[in-house]
């Protein structure tokens, strides 16, 4: 039987995520790095009491629509619809304005565990790598050290940090194949490759599915063994095809596309 991790729809991809699940959500600040369609499907499903693990708590789709992002939903869709019980997060609020997460926080409607970004990434990676814990200096002398084991190593103080385990990881990649091998685009890797394999089930939303063998093994970032499901975005103007007014940016974009094409030694086929 050929291995086939490709699922036909976003609803199918998230069908077994239930109330109270712990979910990791990839991406960073900007929506193009995030699994927008999976978040939408999860919201449609109407799950409650999620514990989420993510870098940020979202700006909301309106912000990204203004920037022309074709898939504009970020963490805010789960926040504003009250689907989150607890957020393990590095950048929950904005210094610039009050986001929906802050409103919930102030109203006492959501729990928070704020984690320094690098510690969050490493706690996720530890879960993926089967590491039972690790020591970091980050947080010594701050609120982060409260109730954590300290240890002096080579004369420097460290804190014990533990892995974050999750039921599902929702991530976004540029291209993927039926084995779950993934490549990313530009600065949109962020937490996506880190979270791949860190949960019991990893679901990858990709811009495009390509035939097995089309991704150059030299440039595959996420080995397919970390990924359980692959689902493709609908074919509409995706980011790399969106309009650009700047000829230089356009040129660099085309060059980047060409680089990837060359690296992958073949033309991708859209499903």
């Amino acid at each position: 039987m050929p291995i086939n991790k490709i699922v036909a729809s976003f609803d199918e991809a998230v069908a077994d995520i239930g109330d109270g699940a712990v979910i990791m959500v990839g991406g960073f600040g900007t929506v193009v790095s995030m699994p927008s369609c999976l978040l939408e499907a999860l919201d449609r499903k109407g799950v409650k009491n999620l514990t989420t693990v993510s870098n940020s708590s979202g700006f909301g789709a309106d912000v990204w629509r203004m920037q022309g992002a074709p898939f504009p939903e970020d963490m805010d869709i789960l926040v504003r619809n009250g689907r989150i019980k607890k957020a393990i997060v590095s950048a929950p609020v904005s210094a610039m304005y009050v986001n929906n997460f802050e409103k919930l926080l102030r109203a006492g409607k959501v729990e928070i565990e704020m984690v320094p970004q690098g510690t969050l990434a490493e706690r996720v990676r530890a879960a993926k790598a089967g590491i039972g814990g690790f020591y970091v200096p980050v947080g010594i002398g701050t609120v982060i050290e409260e109730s954590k084991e300290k240890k002096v190593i080579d004369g420097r103080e460290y804190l014990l940090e533990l892995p974050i385990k999750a039921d599902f990881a929702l991530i976004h990649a540029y291209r993927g194949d039926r084995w779950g091998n993934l490549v990313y685009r530009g600065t949109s890797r962020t937490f996506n490759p880190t979270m791949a394999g860190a949960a019991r089930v990893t679901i990858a939303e990709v811009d495009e599915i390509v035939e097995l063998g089309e991704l150059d093994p030299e440039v595959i970032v996420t080995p397919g063994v970390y990924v359980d499901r692959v689902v493709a975005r609908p074919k509409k103007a995706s980011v790399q095809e969106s309009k650009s007014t700047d000829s230089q940016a356009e040129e660099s974009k085309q060059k980047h596309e060409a680089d990837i094409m060359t690296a992958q030694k073949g033309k991708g086929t859209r499903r």
Partner: protein
Amino acid sequence: MSSEVPEKQRLDRQIMALRVAKEFKDGNVVNLGIGIPGLAANFVPAGREVIFHSENGVLGYGEITLPGEGDLDLVNAGGQTVKRAPGMCFFSHDESFAIVRGGHLDISVMGAYQVSEKGDLANYMVPERQVGTIGGAMDLAFGAKKLIIAMNHTTKEGDYRIVKKCHYHLTAPKCVDLIVTDIAVIEVTKKGLVLKEVAPGWTPEDVQKLTEPRLIVAPDCHDIELM
């Protein structure tokens, strides 16, 4: 609190960024925070090759593009689109913070609410809202070899930001090396805060009035040099 200093011209954000960029030495690996620090990417002194790091997983990015003119998959940590540049590379978040935490960054530049005379930094809890975002600030403050703070010298209300002891939640203790403000450049040393440069038209006495801890005026204290 601070007062009675006649209205003198303060440096604007661009000029502060220009002064910060002067600290970048040839070959330095530099992380720039959101706001004034980020602007420094556009002011690298001529002839110096500097590699910029951003938390979202990029080394070696180019200048910030004009709004609406960049590639959304090529951004700095503040979400500003940046230009492609030869030598740049991308990586995951765990790799990005291995670079930060592992001591591979020469300089980190960020903003602050308060800096103490010992170099303690408070910059994540928004004081009036009692919420905050740690983000990458703690990792950067602990990990970078040199930490430069770029901020206005006082709050909008005229309160001290350079204080004897931080009142706000600490990002990291004893981590700041240099403070670039809109009126001065101050080095954090074991002996205390050393006033190195003042904005044109300002005297060391003017700066002291707006600074809570005692400043040690450097023997060669002079007007801020931008070139």
